[in-house]
């Protein structure tokens, strides 16, 4: 161990010129990549993008790639942290502007991101979520630094209103240089291709995954004298909570044994509370509030039917989780939802109160007559549909393809921007690209790449991190989610987080004394 370390230390000053560095490391480790995931959204923030990044990273680490994550600082959590299996997370102190997304000035994030890319010897930059300004910044800077980029889009967008038009224009510019784009469903691919005016050839579809071992059915938790409909979503407009507010009184009136179990929190909670108040349904409609990920299964298994009323959805994880717990799934036919589950496992309705009521009633009748497949058989069919290992394998192929591509030189990049994004926006962003390049030159003059410390690898082919010898590999997929859940929910994590905070507090806090 000591020897290796010394060897690494001796090599540090000699490994000069970073532009050559990444290419070398690719050659040495044949097809193993140094990946940097960049997104504004990462734990401790909760959501689909966050868990996607975490799970994907864990599976890529298992495959022997080096993965680091860069996100912005959350409260006191800034600096460098390590998660399970040596997954390194940089919480960079960038200013948050709106909705956990950082302010984008195209420049201010360059020094820190450059530092991350250089010291970690990154070869592929993988940005997530079109809502994340940091992701777009990273794509832009990575291109300036001559790195290959991949972008994953997690959401659908409209075309009609002003905000969509602007975001779509920005996306066009941002994705114009990106080597490869990943979408979570075919609907999402179509949407992204249209929005960003992309060549469909460079857009791949890799669905999200759920951890089937976390969502197992347990029929004993159900109460047989009633039929329970479970809804788990954030209570926001996009999730169609207004529709839900229309469905509840109509169905409760018809079926006295019908109960609703609603998990989630959000601004539309008031709608449901009003409905409950107005129709005196306090005993039949239970609002559980915000649920932690580990509690979701406990709620799901209590129900017979899972209802999803989303108005737009790129890929709905919730219905897969519902089906994995053996529930009958009723959902709106929007976005990528029809692609997600086989037809006989899901009842699709139009996003109207009437259509949803009709669909639910059909399922309730089937449930009463007992002609629905057993929870165990549904689980057996769903469990192999979406796994993270599969996602990681497919993502790996994208990286392999991207790693071989050449990065456009500045002049050709500018031409491409102007040809691709229209004369006005193209010229503006070509100018920004030139400024970014000049800024990079300035930074390289101030702090040359060769004086920057090379980080010690914690993952990937040259890691100095000893894997624990246990049966972890088998139980990995299961363990990963559980650990993720632990990580974010249990008191244990918070305790350890505060301890870690003591270790990994940013230097400048101590600099004063």
């Amino acid at each position: 161990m000591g020897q290796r370390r010394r060897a690494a230390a001796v090599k540090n000053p000699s490994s000069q010129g970073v532009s050559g560095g990444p290419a070398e490391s690719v050659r040495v480790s044949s097809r193993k990549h140094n990946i940097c995931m960049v997104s504004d959204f990462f734990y401790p923030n909760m959501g689909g993008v966050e868990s996607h990044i975490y799970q994907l990273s864990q599976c890529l680490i298992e495959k022997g790639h080096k993965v680091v994550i860069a996100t912005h600082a959350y409260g006191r959590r800034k600096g460098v942290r390590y998660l399970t299996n040596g997954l390194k997370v940089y919480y960079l102190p960038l200013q948050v502007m709106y909705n956990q997304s950082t302010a984008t000035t195209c420049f201010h994030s360059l020094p820190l991101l450059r530092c991350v890319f250089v010291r970690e010897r990154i070869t592929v930059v993988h940005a997530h979520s079109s809502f994340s300004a940091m992701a777009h910044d990273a794509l832009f800077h990575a291109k300036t630094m001559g790195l290959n980029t991949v972008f994953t889009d997690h959401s659908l967008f409209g075309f009609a209103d002003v905000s969509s038009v602007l975001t779509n224009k920005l996306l066009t510019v941002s994705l114009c240089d990106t080597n490869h784009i990943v979408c979570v469903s075919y609907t999402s691919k179509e949407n992204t291709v249209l929005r960003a005016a992309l060549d469909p050839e460079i857009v791949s579809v890799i669905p999200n995954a759920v951890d089937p071992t976390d969502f197992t059915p347990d029929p004993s938790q159900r109460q047989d004298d009633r039929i329970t409909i479970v809804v788990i979503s954030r209570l926001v407009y996009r999730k169609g909570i207004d529709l839900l507010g229309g469905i509840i009184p109509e169905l409760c009136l018809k079926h006295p044994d019908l109960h609703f179990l609603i998990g989630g929190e959000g601004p539309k909670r008031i709608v449901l509370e009003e409905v409950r108040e107005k129709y005196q349904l306090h005993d039949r409609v239970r609002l559980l509030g915000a649920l932690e990920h580990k509690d979701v299964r406990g709620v799901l298994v209590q129900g017979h039917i899972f209802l999803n009323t989303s108005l737009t959805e790129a890929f709905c994880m919730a219905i897969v989780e519902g089906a994995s717990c053996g529930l009958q799934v009723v959902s709106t036919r929007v976005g990528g939802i029809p692609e997600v589950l086989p037809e006989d496992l899901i009842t699709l309705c139009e996003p109207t109160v009437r259509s949803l009521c009709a669909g639910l009633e059909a399922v309730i009748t089937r449930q009463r007559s007992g002609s629905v497949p057993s929870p165990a058989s549904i689980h057996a069919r769903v469990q192999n549909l979406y796994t993270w290992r599969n996602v990681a394998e497919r993502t790996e192929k994208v990286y392999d393809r991207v790693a071989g591509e050449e990065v456009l030189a500045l002049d050709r990049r500018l031409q491409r921007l102007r040809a691709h994004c229209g004369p006005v926006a193209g010229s503006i962003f070509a100018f920004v690209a030139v400024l970014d390049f000049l800024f990079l030159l300035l930074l390289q003059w101030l702090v040359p790449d060769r004086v920057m410390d090379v980080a010690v690898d914690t993952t990937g082919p040259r890691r100095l991190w000893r894997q624990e010898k246990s049966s972890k590999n088998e139980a990995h997929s299961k363990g990963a989610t559980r650990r993720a859940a632990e990580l974010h929910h249990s008191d244990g994590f918070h305790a350890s987080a505060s301890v870690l905070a003591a270790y990994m507090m940013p230097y400048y806090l101590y600099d004063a004394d």
Partner: protein
Amino acid sequence: MEDEAFTDINGKAIFLDCQSHSSFCREFTVSSPKVSIGKVMVYTCSVWLLAYAVFFFTQNTAVLSSAILITLVGMMLHIHFVKVDHESLLVIGSLGIQVSSSYASGRETTTFIEMSKIKDIVINEAIYMHQIIYYLCVLLKDPSEPNAVSSVVPLFQVRMMHNVLISQMETCFWKASLHLERLYFPGKASNKHIVNHSILFLMNIVSLSFRVQSRG
């Protein structure tokens, strides 16, 4: 030792000197080169030229005199508070460590950390200005709570590059031991993973005397 060139995080040369006073007592000194006269000239000239340009347009002599004042005061403040001439770390087995830094003006600050308060000496990684750097620091513990870290004290003001820290660790600290997987927090079982993994990487350097102490 001396033939190896060490640099700080900005690529400037620094010198590392290790002295062994006795088997219990060692001293490490990091010194940076003196302020070069050229640099002083450049800064002074640029301030004065700027002042002269302002004077040329405003015809106000107060600008010139204030420029002189600014350069003088700036230089004084710089050598008194910023420019570190040399820093030394005196490790005395079973007693503690003494950190002293002397500035170019001759000002000297000294801190002593007694052994019972030291939990460990580690290399940590942090964001510093617009860079991410490694630095050497002492972890302090509260005697009443021996398993928790109460605070972190960075050891040198001259931020050294990683290779300096490591070579220092490997060649100077006598019988430096890398015991990577020592568990610091025997807390809940579920924490172990996370904590162990995060600590694992903060490469530990604890001298023999420290370990003797902890065994005793």
